[in-house]
């Protein structure tokens, strides 16, 4: 049976030792509750829930999947009860406004809990995950009355939420969406259209489901500037806030799919369903953008989740599985063969997963702290700065970490050999489950265009400069630490090269916009490797410092250093190949005539 243990030591390391979260929370108004002992207590309880309640349901969810019967969806055994426990524990309320029943804790703490919940059971975690998206929408753009009616129920967890964007003919290009909303005399709207791929669109875990729907008003302009946001509840609320009449929205079917079987992916039919406008008309996409980064960070987390899960289980296996002898002579002479962890190539598989999971954790937490600051910092300049940094890091975290999360999940399977391919061990599920993360919340290609086109080139490189400055400052600050040179030297070089590459692509793009597209994914991956190198260097620096001071757990810090070294010597060199390909131009992609692909 695969297992998950929340890596609390590493989580604490990143939070406290690398990112100094105590200081961070103390400087944010309203976060004084989040003291280190409180954070530790919350983490501990979240870990228990993830390990004991959710982790054992992960395989069940995959094997049973969701069942569809005449508009109703039944979730796998245990999912509903686990959700009930989650609600009783008050977890949905963590990062929300106390005015609506929330605990008012910072968003970053919620992300910390999501890491454990999501790693233990990604499919399950999507039900509260989608609610969180709906809550953020309502919190930012709803009227007080809408908050009173819907937000309080979502915060308490009694109801869940969805995000209904995608339609059969449009996923990436939401400007084409057709779902209509007709104004009614009473101020409500009649919403009609078909949405597909709606996660958690229908299920049996809560009394009501609040759909947040993108649709068009009758007089709306074409394209993305004509989209509005609506609340469409499955059951219309009664005057006293209870569950009333059934609304005209129903689930037509659920998808049979590659992974995340425990989460329902629904076709949702809106047949003149009663809806309520949120935010200004035709500004729906702008409204969505206000928390797009937070939502995408939530998906970036999936990369970390599958890397961590694969790593934990394949590590256990690699120590137990006996096969062949070490090339340098038997390491377990009294046994029939050596455990496979003695083989260099098996270690490469393990270390890659470890470096991605731990580096990814640092990247997610760093971004999460920017979410806090962007929302809560007193000083507007500080808020703006954090928002900018978050906007820059988000596409990197989302696309890079999910791509490497998938690679890591694959490595996890590889460690198990043929047994990895057999369902019982859970490793093939991990690969299948991880695959979706590169598709939803904006595909890798779309994130890459967002990074290179919108975030970097459109700001004339300002966003990139903002980040490379941070990296540069870090390198400067530790330039006299001799043992850090092995990390700082390559990091400094890449940090400079990053700007030069951007210039080169920018120049080419002035002649031909396809150059942006042609370089985008390679550019994003390059950016990911450099960003992670910065974080690994920071972690190495803390480890060096602790070792030099003789503080704490020596083995832990040694392992950090060794993993940092692995990252710099085995993963970071991938940037060399990316540089070549990203600069190779659009021609090698565009030259082939569309009709000649077949030859």
């Amino acid at each position, binding site marked *: 049976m695969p297992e998950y243990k929340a890596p609390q030591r590493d989580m604490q390391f990143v939070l406290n030792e690398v990112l100094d979260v105590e200081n961070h929370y103390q400087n944010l108004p309203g976060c004084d509750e989040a*003291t280190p002992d409180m954070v530790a207590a919350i983490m501990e309880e979240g870990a228990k829930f993830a390990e004991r309640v959710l982790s054992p349901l992960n395989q069940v969810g995959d094997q049973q999947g969701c069942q569809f019967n005449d508009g109703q969806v039944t979730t796998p055994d245990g999912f509903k009860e686990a959700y009930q426990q989650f609600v009783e524990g008050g977890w949905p309320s963590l990062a929300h406004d106390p005015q609506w029943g929330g605990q008012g804790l910072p968003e970053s703490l919620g992300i910390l809990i999501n890491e454990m919940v999501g790693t233990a059971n990604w499919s399950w975690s999507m039900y509260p995950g989608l609610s969180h998206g709906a809550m953020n929408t309502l919190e930012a753009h709803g009227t007080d009355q809408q908050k009173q009616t819907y937000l309080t129920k979502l915060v308490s967890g009694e109801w869940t939420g969805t995000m209904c964007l995608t339609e059969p003919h449009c996923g990436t290009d939401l400007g084409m969406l057709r779902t209509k909303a007709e104004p009614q005399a009473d101020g409500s709207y009649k919403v009609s259209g078909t949405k597909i791929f709606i996660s958690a669109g229908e299920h049996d875990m809560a009394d009501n489901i609040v759909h947040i729907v993108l649709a068009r008003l009758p007089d709306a302009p074409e394209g993305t500037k004509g989209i509005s946001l609506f609340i469409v509840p499955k059951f219309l609320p009664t005057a006293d806030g209870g569950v009333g009449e059934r609304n005209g929205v129903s689930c037509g079917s659920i998808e049979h799919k590659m992974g995340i079987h425990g989460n329902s992916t629904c076709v949702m039919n809106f047949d003149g369903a009663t809806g309520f406008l949120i935010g200004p008309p035709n500004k729906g996409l702008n409204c969505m953008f206000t928390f797009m980064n937070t939502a995408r960070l939530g998906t970036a987390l999936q990369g970390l989740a599958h890397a961590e899960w694969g790593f934990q289980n394949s590590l256990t296996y690699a120590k137990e599985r006996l096969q062949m002898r070490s090339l340098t002579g038997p390491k377990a002479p009294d046994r029939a063969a050596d455990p496979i962890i003695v083989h260099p190539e098996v270690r490469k598989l393990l270390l890659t997963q470890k470096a991605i999971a731990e580096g990814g954790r640092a990247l997610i937490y760093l971004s999460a702290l920017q979410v806090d600051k962007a929302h809560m910092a007193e000083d507007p300049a500080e808020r703006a700065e954090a928002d900018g940094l978050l906007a820059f890091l988000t596409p990197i975290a989302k696309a890079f970490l999910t791509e490497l999360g998938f690679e890591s999940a694959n490595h996890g399977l590889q460690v198990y050999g043929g047994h990895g391919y057999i369902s019982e061990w859970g490793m093939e599920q991990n690969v299948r489950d991880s695959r979706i993360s590169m598709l939803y919340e904006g595909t890798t290609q779309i994130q890459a265009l967002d990074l290179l086109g919108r975030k970097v080139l459109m700001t004339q490189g300002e966003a990139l400069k903002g980040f490379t400055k941070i990296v540069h400052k870090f390198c400067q600050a530790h330039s006299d630490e001799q043992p850090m040179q092995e990390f700082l030297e390559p990091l400094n070089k890449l940090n400079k090269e990053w700007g030069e590459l951007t210039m080169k692509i920018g120049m080419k793009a002035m002649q031909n916009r396809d150059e942006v597209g042609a370089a985008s994914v390679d550019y994003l991956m390059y950016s990911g490797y450099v960003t992670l190198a910065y974080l690994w260097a920071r972690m190495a620096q803390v480890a060096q410092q602790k070792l030099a001071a003789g503080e704490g757990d020596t083995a832990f810090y040694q392992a950090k250093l060794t993993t940092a070294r692995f990252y710099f010597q085995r993963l970071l060199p991938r940037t060399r190949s990316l540089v070549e390909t990203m600069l190779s131009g659009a021609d090698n992609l565009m030259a082939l005539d569309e009709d000649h692909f077949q030859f």
Partner: protein
Amino acid sequence: MKVLVAVKRVLDHNVKVRVKSDHSDVDLTNIKMALNPFCEIAVEEAVRLKEAGIATEVVVMSIGPKAVQEQIRTALALGADRGIQIETDTMPESLSVAKLIAKVVEDERPSLIILGKQAIDSDNNQTGQMLAALTGMGQGTFASDVEIQDNEALVTREVDGGLQTVALRLPAIVTSDLRLNEPRYASLPNIMKAKKKPLDVKSAAELGIELRAHTELLKVEPPAERQGGIKVASVEELVDKLKNEAKVI
């Protein structure tokens, strides 16, 4: 009715125990610590008594350095009302612990005192019994069920031969066994409330108890590594080996 629960900070049951290189003790540096599982059950029982309207207040106490406040907070998050820490530099032996608890009992005058039957670090299983001797109260150890009726506690005990039920006049002492209940998960709002619940700190000296060591730890050694097993061809061979080689039957 007031219930007093005494809890201990021990190493987490998931942690693999390591022995210090000089064999002087178990190595606890940077080891994850937790509430002793039997103590957690004791807290749960007290909270359930309160929820059932039988107990009116649940007081939780722990003895040790400042760090034990973490475990007191954990108990408060599970539903206890207030905490008492008896500050000591190190973890005292069972008899000193029992004496300190007896002092608190004198001050607090609880009707029921619930303890874990043993702590998973030293596995002594004696504090509850010592406390009973010191206070002269009745004891129901290894409890798998506790019922309060009028002025009595009916305690079902897990004994070697099965179950035994004893009736204890209150105030009384109960020590919890594994099957007494299944502790809840602390809810997020309760974790946050726990921080605001009162927690008194007293020193052992203030209570007038002198901490004495009655035993001396000479050496700690990890259990011998398990030797590889062998296959036997028949039941006769197995019996023979058990008799003549292993000498266990």
